[in-house]
């Protein structure tokens, strides 16, 4: 029976998701066909992602893009089938499945784009920081803000926090590229970044700097 608040569209979406789960589970007769259908959807998502990131892969040949898409779809299929019991029905099944293919493709593209590239040294970050602190409209505070921030980054953070903050926030190194090089995970590195930012905000506040940024909508 349907809850009174559910719309016909939501009911139809839930039924479609249930059908996917039934067809993909156990030994149902149509499982092979359902797996093939799911792989086709994941491949579509992987191609979509690789297409929109084509600019960062300009050094690859045409066939390499398709290889990356196929690998991404294959890896996403394994992940989706292993996690079927984690699908909670809070979105369409296809939306839930797509995110695995997009993630696989995005990580592969970022790693491929950074293959053979050195992660920039800490020194390269100071000019970014200088630019950042020179144009915030704080007048005479700006030069002091740069000095204090650099001091706090160099002395107030743990080596891992400094490494992650400098690479990701100042040198634009993708976090999963950095995670691969440091033998860590995206989640663990983001926690270091989060802790570093919190420390810096606290240190700036303690030293009398206001933290209100006139930030424009980016998303």
């Amino acid at each position: 029976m349907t809850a009174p608040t559910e719309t016909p569209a939501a009911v139809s979406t839930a039924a479609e998701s249930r059908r996917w789960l039934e067809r993909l589970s156990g030994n149902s007769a149509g499982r092979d066909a359902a797996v093939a259908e799911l792989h086709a959807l994941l491949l579509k998502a992987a191609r979509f992602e690789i297409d929109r990131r084509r600019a960062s892969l300009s050094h690859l040949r045409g066939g390499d893009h398709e290889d990356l898409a196929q690998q991404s779809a294959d890896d996403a299929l394994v992940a989706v089938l292993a996690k079927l019991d984690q699908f909670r029905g809070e979105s369409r099944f296809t939306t839930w499945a797509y995110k695995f293919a997009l993630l696989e493709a995005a990580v592969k593209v970022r790693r491929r784009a950074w293959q053979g590239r050195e992660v920039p040294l800490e020194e390269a970050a100071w000019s970014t920081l200088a630019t950042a602190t020179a144009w915030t409209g704080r007048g005479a505070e700006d030069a002091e803000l740069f000095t204090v921030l650099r001091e706090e980054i160099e002395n107030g953070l743990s080596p891992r926090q400094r490494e992650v903050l400098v690479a990701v926030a100042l040198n634009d190194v993708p976090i999963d590229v950095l995670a691969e090089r440091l033998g860590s995970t995206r989640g663990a590195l983001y926690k270091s970044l989060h802790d570093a930012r919190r420390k810096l905000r606290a240190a700036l506040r303690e030293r009398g700097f206001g933290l209100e940024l006139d930030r424009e909508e980016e998303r």
Partner: protein
Amino acid sequence: MSDQAQKRQAVDALARVLGLEEPELSCEECFTQLDRYVELSLTSDRADREVPGMRAHLDGCPACAEDFRSLRDLVAAEQEGEE
């Protein structure tokens, strides 16, 4: 580059260094909630209310923000095709 553009770039760069002063999801929680958040943001204005901490995380994590934009655009394109 105009003064305005330089200022905007500077403010964004400083925001990347300092992050936001509000609770946010982890990368793992973000991935778990991403499909629901994307559908809510395409069909309602309740996404940020229903998934607290997501917006702050997307503002602070460039990789998760890219994943969000990709899934949103793919699902939106598919919905347009259904109409």
